[in-house]
């Protein structure tokens, strides 16, 4: 299965601190294996809908092998290898993501003082391109005003934006 994985600079797992073997030339990175225990171990990755929850510096396409299971906002497999870095996930894309969230929150803030309070924080984080924080604040603010289902819709909109902007091909994967 093909999925996506956010990593810290240098292809390092943000939580595991493991540096992933990266592809060389046309060859994928070597397989990384782990015992599967949904949250604490296993190879964690994202489907498109999971991406907004885990935004980080680098985005990679990853091939997962073995039984893949879902654990909250991520999927887990016994082994995986990096196929290619999604170069389109760069500072410009982070800025564009933040702007798209800001536009949606401005619309909500125009009809709700509750959301207007969050807009100040969101714009400050957007200014420093803190995409993960901006995405969270946007979903939270919409959730406060319009409820949990609307918050989920905002996350879906963020995932859709990322998929379109980064050209993540989900067909047949």
């Amino acid at each position, binding site marked *: 299965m093909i999925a996506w994985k956010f990593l810290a600079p240098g292809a390092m797992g*943000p*939580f595991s*601190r493991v540096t992933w073997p990266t592809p060389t030339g046309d060859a994928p990175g070597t397989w990384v294996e782990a015992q599967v*225990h*949904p*949250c*604490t171990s296993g190879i964690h990755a994202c489907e498109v809908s999971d991406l907004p*929850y*885990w*935004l*980080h510096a680098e985005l990679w396409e990853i091939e997962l092998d073995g039984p893949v299971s879902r*654990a*909250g*906002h*991520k999927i887990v497999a016994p082994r995986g290898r990096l196929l290619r870095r999604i170069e389109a996930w760069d500072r410009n894309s982070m800025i564009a993501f933040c702007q798209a969230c800001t536009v949606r929150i401005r619309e909500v803030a125009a009809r709700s003082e509750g959301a207007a309070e969050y807009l100040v924080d969101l714009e400050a984080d957007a200014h420093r391109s*803190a995409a*993960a*924080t901006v*995405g*969270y604040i946007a*979903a*939270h603010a919409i*959730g*406060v005003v319009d409820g*949990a289902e609307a*918050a*989920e819709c905002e*996350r879906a909109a963020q995932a859709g934006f990322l998929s379109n902007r980064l050209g993540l091909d989900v067909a047949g994967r």
Partner: protein
Amino acid sequence: MSDQQLTCEELVEIVTEYLDGGLSDAERERFEEHVVVCSGCANYLDQIRMTIEIAGRVTVDDLMEETKTELLAAFKDWKRE
């Protein structure tokens, strides 16, 4: 979603359990989702990890006698409390 998000105060309280692998799957995911969106807590987690790494390299022989005495006294007081 928003109801399940950890606060920064809650995260600080469970950071040791997180690093020890003592959290449930759901708690661990909430912890990590918070760290992704909160630069303050991400820095805090980095600092704790660094402290553990540096402190883990210290052996008894590395300590000055004065420091050993101070530490032993502190632990005795802590046990009394």
